[in-house]
């Protein structure tokens, strides 16, 4: 099976540790991932801000880069949701505008082969115990796209529960949005900040040291909020926890 790592532009630029963690983790599980260097961005920010026509070339480029692989793994629920949910919609809209099947045809191959990391581990590799060690108190925030668009369900929890030394504590109001929402964080900064502050307080109330999620963009917003407020909780991507071992512990 030829597996590609779709790291996403945010992780590539700002969170390379997450990418390294995915490579290490999958390597440990016997999966040799490839990182096609031509990859850039799935187009989610463009699409969600209303630039559908600007999104099309990005989606096309993405599908061309990844089309030949058997599976495409990404440590980002929202980018996985972009491909799985919204690429078909881009094709449909092009068809409705009388531009034929071409775009739909180009995008279709990557749709069923794209997996969010925890889905890939549980559904494709069939593992929940990935042999990780992480002796910290952790609370998990299921981000909106993972929760509602992809329906990740309890997959991330099952993976975390199997990590040795990890104490998982319930996050109050877990399924409420953290307030990131891409350009929403800037366009409606006041409401976004209020949502982030509530999420931070909920995380603090659990006594956890670490707030874990499967999306670095949400963690960027929450991490920025917590760092500014001088919170004791710190954000960590789930891939880094799952990659953590005694020999190579994550922070």
């Amino acid at each position: 099976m030829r597996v590609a790592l779709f790291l996403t532009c945010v992780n590539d630029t700002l969170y390379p540790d997450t990418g390294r963690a995915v490579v290490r983790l999958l390597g440990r599980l016997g999966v040799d991932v490839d990182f096609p260097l031509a990859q850039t961005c799935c187009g989610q920010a463009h699409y969600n801000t209303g630039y559908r026509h600007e999104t099309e070339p990005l989606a096309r480029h993405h599908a061309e880069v990844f089309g030949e692989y058997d599976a495409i793994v990404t440590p980002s629920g929202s980018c996985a949701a972009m491909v799985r949910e919204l690429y078909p919609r881009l094709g449909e809209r092009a068809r409705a505008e009388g531009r034929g099947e071409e775009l739909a045809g180009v995008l279709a191959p990557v749709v069923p082969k794209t997996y969010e990391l925890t889905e890939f581990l549980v559904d494709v590799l069939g593992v929940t115990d990935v042999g990780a060690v992480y002796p910290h108190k952790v609370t998990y925030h299921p981000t909106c796209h993972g929760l509602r668009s992809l329906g990740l369900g309890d997959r991330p929890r099952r993976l975390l529960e199997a990590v040795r030394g990890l104490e998982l504590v319930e996050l109050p109001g877990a399924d409420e949005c953290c307030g990131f929402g891409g350009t929403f964080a800037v366009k409606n900064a006041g409401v976004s900040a209020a949502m982030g502050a509530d999420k931070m307080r909920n995380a603090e109330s659990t006594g956890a040291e670490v707030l874990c999620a499967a999306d670095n963009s949400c963690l960027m917003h929450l991490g920025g909020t917590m760092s500014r407020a001088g919170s004791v909780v710190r954000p960590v991507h789930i891939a880094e926890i799952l990659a953590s071992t005694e020999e190579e512990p994550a922070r």
Partner: protein
Amino acid sequence: MNETFVGMPAFPEAAREALDDTTLRGNLRHATHTIRAKRAATVAEVSDWAELREAGSRIKEHTLRHLDRYLEQLEESVTAAGGTVHWAADAAEANRIVTELVRETGESEVVKVKSMATQEIGLNEALEAAGIRAYETDLAELIVQLGEDRPSHILVPAIHRNRAEIRDIFRTAMAGWGRPAPEGLSDRPAELAEAARLHLREKFLRAKVGVSGANFMVAETGTMVVVESEGNGRMCLTLPETLISVVGIEKVVPTWRDLEVFLQTLPRSSTAERMNPYTSMWTGTTDGDGPRAFHLVLLDNGRTDTLADEVGRQALRCIRCSACLNVCPVYERAGGHAYGSVYPGPIGAILSPQLRGTASEIDVSLPYASSLCGACYEVCPVAIDIPEVLVRLRERVVEGGPAVREGNRVVLRPARGHAAERAAMRAARWTFTHPGALRTGQRLASRARRLRPRTLPGPGAAWTATRDLPEVPAEPFRDWWERTRGGKEETT
């Protein structure tokens, strides 16, 4: 739409008031979280909820596709049952029709049962200009009217008020509208309800004209349906001699049988009740029972324009249950008034800019009043994909494109004020379709990483006002990958 709402500032500004008001945020948080939990429990009792949701969505979708046919059938049935049907293309026409109908009765006051359509068109103000006083009789509407306030929730228009505030409103304002509040009125709910009952009873018994909305209209029989909790609506529907119902054209359903689905999903979604306390149905007029004259005013006011958009038209499936408001994290913090319309929350964010167009400051900003978290879609009993419609409307704002306005095909131009964003999006698209350029940008960022500022200028300031920026890593992932061939030749 409602006069009190025009000239609203854009959403982020309008939301600021609510964000700063801790009492208001507390009231909203408490109310929405309570009803949210109750709704989830009542919905969980129904084993075939998913099928009901699907059926409701399909019935509405089918009706919208053949709306012309069902509206004609409705007109025939209502007329055959002794009612009179009037067609109103917009707010002004609807107001004119209702004012004329009231004038013909020779009356100068009307009682009203909660009707969002009449608020949408600003009927109370239009009647007042014609010397006719309209009395709201729904408890929450009464509070809003006496408080010279605006509704902030679909189902609980006074959700932003707490008990003490309501007592104060009753004490100071009731006398000016009829029977004054009892001496020494406290803020106990039972006392407040009794004060409202006494105040309203006087009006029910005196009024000769009633004005209502409707939750559903049944095409095959011409039956109108109002679903409510207090019984005040039933008084308005049965006691007056003349009844005028103002209803949006999207409220029609084909058959009596279709009601079965909605009478299950509506109460559970809205008030978290298994069945609502009062379901009133009336079909034309009947000798010796109820109003002697019945008028149905069918309101378009932007609805057929909305119908023309294949993505946006699903907003017309809405049964106004308000479940989406109660789960919306943005509504919870920004409050209902920030949406600048009688339709607040997620449904308001997609309905208002379609009914009114995206010309005003508030309507241009509403499609962005969401983090696209999807909670509204998940909860909606007719499966309206609100996030999808929001994105569609954003597209209309920034890219323009074809639309229908007042029945005419037009090509909308992109809204002003998005030029910088558009340029940035184009530049980003160019970078992302040229991987070499992306890498150059990443390296520049890495080199400048020590400069990580605490505050950013321009739009970035909205981020750094409350949040720190992430640290830029020394090396982007792709450089590490190339240098080490994916960790196989790791040297550091």
